[in-house]
C-alpha cells in the first residue's frame, strides 16, 4: 500500500472514539510515523455519527483529506454520511451487524472483525475501544510491547484487574489486525520519535503558560473550552487562577481587573461569546489595560453549526468594540506557531497595552499533529510593569504612545484607570484638545508595534507568478497542495498576523501576476481586508463554508482548474 494512509473511525458520540484516537496516534508517532488527526462531530452528547480521520504518512502532513483508505465502522449508520468519500480501494473493517447490506454487495473491500464479540470475550462492550486500538496497532505492525506499555500507562490509576483486562483486549485486537494482512508499508523516520504530539488546544494552552499566563476565566463554549480546561489541569503546578465566569461579559471584565492588579490574564471563547465581549474589548482599549483573547471560530450566525469549523469571525475580531482603537490579531496555522504566537501575545499585550486576539477555529483546535520540539529558553516573559512614584500619571503622553503601566501596591503612586475620556492622570475630561491627544496617543501604539510586526511567510517557489494567500488553519492544506503540485510559478503566502497587515504584504502581493485567496468562509473577509489596505484585488477566490475544513483533494483540484 501507499506511503500515505488515511484511516477513518466512524461511530456514535459517547462511544469513546477519542480514546482510540489519542492512543493510536501516540503509538504511531512513537513508532516513527508522521501522523495527523482531526475530528468532526455532530452537536450531540450521545448517538448521531462522528468521525475521526487519522493520516499516517512518510512525509509531514497537516491537512484533512477526503479519501478514506481504511474505514473502521464502530456502529450502525456509520457509513452513509461519508459514503461519497469511499473509493474502490477503501477497506471497510467492522462487524457484520454494523455494515449495511448495500455496502456488502458492492465494490468495497470488506474485512469482517467481530469487535463486540471479542469485547464480550474479554469482559464486556467497554473493551471495544481498546480492541480497536489493538486492531490498528496490528495493522501497522507496531511493536506489541510498546502497545502494552501504553495500556499500562493509560489505565495506571484503575487498578490491576482493569489493566490486565485491557491488555488482553489490546492483544486480541492486535492479533486480528495482523491476521488481516493489509500489507501496509509506510516508511518510518526515526526522527519523528523525538517529536512532540499535541492538539491545537494544547498549543494555545502551552503558549499561554510560556507567555506567563497566570489567570484565565471563560464561559464554556465549543470549540474554545479546551484551553481553560487545559490550564485548570495545570493550575496548581503553575499557579494559575482559573475561574468559570457566569458569562463572557464577566470573563472579559475579570481579566481586565486581573491585569490591572498585575496578573497576565486571558479568556477563551467562540464567536457568540466574543460578540458579548465587545463592550469589554472597547473598555480595554480606552483604559489601556492589556488583554489576551483566544477566539476559536465556528460557523455562525448565532448558534450556526456549533461543532463545526469556519473562518467566519475575522471581521468580528477586526471591528469588535465601539469607538476607534488599535488591536493586534494573530491566526496561527500550525501548532508551533500556535505556541509562539500565544506566548508573544502576552508580551505584546503587556508592552503595547492593546487587545491581542488569537484566532483559531474548530479544525485547528480539535486536530492533533507532531511538531519538532521547541527550545523554551528562546522564550522571554517580558514584564513591562513599572514602579510608580508619587506623581505617577497613568496616561502620560509619550513619544511612542505607550504610557508606563503601574499596578497598585508597587510604588508610591495611585493607579487610576478610567473608561471615560481622561487626562494623563486618569481623570474624566471633556476638553477637546486632550481628547484628540488621547485618541492619537492610543493609535501611536499601533505605529510603534509595526517595528515588531510579523511578516507573511512565502512557501513554495520564490519566483512565483501566482500567489495563493491564506491565513490561520488553512496553512496545512495549502502548503501540502503546493508541495504536491510542485509548480515553479506557484507560491503560498501564509499570514499568521492578520491585523495589522504585515509590513511585507504589498511587496509580496505585487510580485505576483495572479492572486488567489483561499478562505474557509463565504465572503473572503481577509481578501476584503487586504483590498481595503492595499487596493489590491484577488482574481480568484476559493471559499468554503459548509462547516467542513478544506480537503487536500479539493484544493489541488481547484488550483489545477485555475491554471
Amino acid at each position, binding site marked *: 500500500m501507499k506511503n500515505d494512509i488515511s484511516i477513518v473511525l466512524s461511530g456514535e458520540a459517547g462511544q469513546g472514539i477519542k480514546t482510540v484516537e489519542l492512543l493510536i496516534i501516540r503509538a504511531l508517532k512513537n513508532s516513527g510515523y508522521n501522523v495527523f488527526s482531526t475530528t468532526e462531530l455532530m452537536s450531540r452528547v450521545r448517538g448521531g455519527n462522528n468521525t475521526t480521520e487519522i493520516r499516517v504518512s512518510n512525509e509531514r502532513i497537516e491537512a484533512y483529506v477526503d479519501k478514506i483508505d481504511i474505514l473502521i465502522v464502530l456502529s450502525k449508520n456509520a457509513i452513509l454520511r461519508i459514503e461519497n468519500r469511499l473509493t474502490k480501494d477503501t477497506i471497510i473493517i467492522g462487524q457484520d451487524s454494523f455494515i449495511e447490506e448495500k455496502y456488502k454487495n458492492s465494490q468495497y473491500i470488506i474485512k469482517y472483525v467481530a469487535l463486540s464479540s471479542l469485547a464480550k470475550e474479554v469482559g464486556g462492550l467497554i473493551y471495544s475501544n481498546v480492541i480497536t486500538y489493538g486492531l490498528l496497532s496490528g495493522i501497522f505492525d507496531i511493536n506489541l510491547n510498546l502497545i502494552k506499555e501504553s495500556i499500562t500507562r493509560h489505565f495506571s490509576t484503575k487498578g490491576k484487574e482493569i489493566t490486565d483486562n485491557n491488555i488482553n483486549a489490546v492483544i486480541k485486537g492486535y492479533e486480528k489486525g495482523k491476521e488481516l494482512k493489509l500489507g501496509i508499508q509506510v516508511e518510518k523516520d526515526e526522527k519523528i520519535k523525538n517529536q512532540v504530539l499535541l492538539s491545537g488546544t494544547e498549543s494555545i494552552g502551552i503558549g499561554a503558560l510560556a507567555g506567563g499566563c497566570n489567570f484565565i476565566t471563560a464561559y464554556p463554549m465549543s470549540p474554545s473550552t479546551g484551553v481553560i480546561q487545559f490550564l485548570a489541569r495545570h493550575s496548581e503546578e503553575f499557579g494559575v487562577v482559573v475561574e468559570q465566569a457566569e458569562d463572557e461579559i464577566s470573563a472579559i471584565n475579570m481579566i481586565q481587573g486581573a491585569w490591572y492588579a498585575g496578573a497576565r490574564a486571558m479568556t477563551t471563547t467562540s464567536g457568540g461569546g466574543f460578540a458579548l465581549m465587545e463592550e469589554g474589548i472597547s473598555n480595554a482599549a480606552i483604559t489601556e489595560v492589556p488583554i489576551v483573547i483566544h477566539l476559536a471560530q465556528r460557523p455562525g450566525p448565532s448558534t450556526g453549526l456549533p461543532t463545526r469549523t469556519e473562518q467566519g469571525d475575522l471581521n468580528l475580531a477586526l471591528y469588535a468594540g465601539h469607538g476607534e482603537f488599535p488591536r493586534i490579531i494573530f491566526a496561527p496555522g500550525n501548532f508551533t506557531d500556535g505556541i509562539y504566537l500565544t506566548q508573544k501575545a502576552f508580551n505584546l499585550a503587556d508592552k503595547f497595552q492593546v487587545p491581542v486576539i488569537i484566532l483559531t477555529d474548530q479544525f485547528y483546535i480539535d486536530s492533533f499533529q507532531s511538531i519538532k520540539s521547541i527550545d523554551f529558553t528562546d522564550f522571554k516573559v517580558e514584564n513591562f510593569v513599572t514602579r510608580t512614584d508619587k506623581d505617577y500619571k497613568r496616561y502620560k503622553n509619550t513619544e511612542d504612545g505607550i504610557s508606563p503601566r503601574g499596578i497598585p501596591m508597587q510604588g508610591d503612586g495611585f493607579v*487610576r484607570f478610567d473608561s471615560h475620556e481622561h487626562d494623563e492622570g486618569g481623570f474624566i475630561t471633556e476638553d477637546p484638545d486632550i481628547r484628540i491627544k488621547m485618541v492619537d496617543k492610543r493609535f501611536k501604539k499601533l505605529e510603534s508595534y509595526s517595528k515588531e510586526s510579523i511578516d507573511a511567510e512565502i512557501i513554495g517557489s520564490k519566483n512565483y507568478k501566482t500567489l495563493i494567500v491564506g491565513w490561520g488553519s488553512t496553512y496545512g492544506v495549502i502548503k501540502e497542495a503546493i508541495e504536491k503540485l510542485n509548480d515553479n510559478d506557484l507560491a503560498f503566502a501564509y499570514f499568521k498576523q492578520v491585523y495589522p497587515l504585515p509590513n511585507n504584504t504589498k511587496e509580496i502581493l505585487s510580485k505576483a501576476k495572479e492572486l488567489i485567496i483561499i478562505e474557509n468562509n463565504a465572503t473572503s473577509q481577509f481578501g476584503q481586508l487586504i483590498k481595503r489596505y492595499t487596493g489590491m484585488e484577488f482574481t480568484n477566490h476559493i471559499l468554503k463554508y459548509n462547516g467542513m475544513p478544506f480537503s487536500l483533494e479539493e484544493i489541488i483540484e481547484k488550483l489545477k482548474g485555475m491554471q
Partner: protein
Amino acid sequence: MTTIFDFDQIPETSWCPGCGNFSILKVLKEALDELKIDPKNLVISAGIGQAAKTSQYINSNCFNGLHGRALPVATGIKASNPDLIVVAEGGDGDMYGEGGNHFIHAIRRNIDIVNIVHNNMVYGLTLGQASPTSRKEFKTPLQLEGVSSEPFNPIAVAISLGASFVARAFSGDMKQMKEILKEAVKHKGYALVDIFHPCVSFNKINNFKWFKDNTYYLNENYDNTDKMEALKKAFETDKFPLGVIYTNGKNKTFEENLIAYKNDKRPLYKREVDLEKIEKLLN
C-alpha cells in the same frame, strides 16, 4: 473633617446639590480613614452612573470601568492580589440591572470585597427612568402609567444566595452608615451594603422624608446570624429595616479556595515563570 482620601484640591463633582451621594462619599472616606486603611492598598472598582462617579472623588487607586461590570473587575483584582482591599461601587441600575448576573455570581463566589450600592430607586444619569428597585406605580418619563414590575429585593436575593454580610443603610444617618461601612470593610468575605439615598432631581416620591418615614433600625436583640429571621426582615416593606441584616463569616472566601494559592500565597505579580517546567509539558 479631612481624610487621607481627600485630594489636595477638592474636585468638582457632577452631583446635584442635596444629592445623597455627597454623604456617602464623605462617610466612606471617613470610615476608611478611621480604619487606618492605606490608600495605596485600596482599589475602588466602579461602574457607570452618578453613584459610580464616587471613585473619581477618592484619592486612591481606581478602576472606573463599564456600566454594570464593577463586580467582575473587582473579582479579577482581588483574585490576582488578595492583599488589596477592594470596593465595588455603583448605583441600583448599575449593580442590580445591567450587572444583575454579576451580582448573583459575585455573592455565590464569596469574594472578599465590599459591594456598595447607592440605591435611590431611580436612574439619575439618564434623567429619571425606573430602576430595578423602583416601587410599583412609580411614574417616569418612560414608565408613563407607572412601574408594573415587582421591585428587585437585593437584601433577600443576597441572603438567599449565601452572602456572608448583608446590610442596609440610609444616607440620612451618616453615623450609622459609617458604622455599617466599617463593619463591611472589616468583614472577611463578600459584603453588601445597600444604601438608601434620595435623588433630589428625579425621584420626588422616595425623597428624604419618605426614607425617614419608611425605615426603622433593627433593635439590639435582633440576631443577625439567623438566616431565616434575616429573610423575614428582608421581606418587610411597610418599613424597611436598617442595619446589618445578616452576617456569617464562616464560609471560605473565593481567594482562599483558589488552587493557585494552595502552595504559594504571594500575589500573582510577585511570581516568576518557570519556562523549563512548562517545556516539560511537551513531552
